[in-house]
């Protein structure tokens, strides 16, 4: 597909999602209290969008991933939260 065709097919959807992210960040700013680590990790991942190479999806996923390599001693629970809290959380 040409870039023009891709824009024709996906621009409106991407625009909508971009505004959703902007509105989410505004909502968090309007909220009270201290945010947890997820907001900082989210902002860090947003920075990956400025990369000049077409590996942004991979880079965002890696930015939100646990980079360590050893199994942890015990599960803190069953679920995942979408961002890595750091070694101290374990």
């Amino acid at each position: 597909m040409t870039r023009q065709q891709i824009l024709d097919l996906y621009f409106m959807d991407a625009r909508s999602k971009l505004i959703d992210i902007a509105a989410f960040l505004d909502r968090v700013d309007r909220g009270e209290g201290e945010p947890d680590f997820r907001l900082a990790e989210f902002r860090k991942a947003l920075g990956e969008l400025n990369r000049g190479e077409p590996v942004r999806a991979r880079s965002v996923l890696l930015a939100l991933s646990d980079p360590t390599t050893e199994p942890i001693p015990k599960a803190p629970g069953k679920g995942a939260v979408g961002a890595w809290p750091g070694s101290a959380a374990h």
Partner: protein
Amino acid sequence: MVSRVTDDYEAMITAGCRAVCEPAFWAGYDRSGPQGFYDYFCQLTDYEPKRAAKFLLPHFTWLCINPKESEDVKLAEDVIALIPQFLDRPNVLGIGEIGLNKNTRNELKVLEQHIDLAARYDQLILVHTPHLEDKFKGTRLILDAILADKRIKPDRVIIDHVEEHTIQMVLDAGFWAGITLYPESKTTPARAVDMFEVYGGQRVWLNSACDWGRSDPLAVPKTAIEMRRRGHSDETIDRLVFQNPAQFLGQNPRFTVR
């Protein structure tokens, strides 16, 4: 699909789905003991194929104790001991979905026991990779664990739920890669087609996650439409959504859907 209503089977066959392959997974709560798994395996190998057959949809399944319940090693050992008696059931494809959830030492022990079970009974393997922030690390640990057992041939293993940061390592190691379509925590149809276009269609398949969460049994047919919108040929679409899974699953002679 034990977590779905019968209407979903009807919708799948209407949309052109040719078979359903249901892995053993977490029930949304921890079962109280091995007997609960015995009953679950009976459901997957007896009742559920009959329910699907009412809509002319062949039903296949994979057996294991899911990684979300693998933290209790004794329970896992008891459940794994139950599995061989079910492996001769006509709709059983192999061992799955095994893998890791939170990447713990106990989960890894249970994964190794499942790998050993698959090797001893010469079974295909379906692997669940962890969610979200745990996926990258978990995928690396899983690949290392499977590659360490020389009895296992990588082309008889599918590593499921790959995303843009894990698909390359899976394919490079010789495994099949499963792209799971799930609206929130996994992959959308557009991203799945992106991965197909970037990484190619060799040893790659798509699957629709169908559980208690927001999931769509028709996600694969919808992804076929997405491919068509991008101009992919019918032959290319057929290769990805049907021929590839049929090739992998056909390694088990019970899978005769063609």
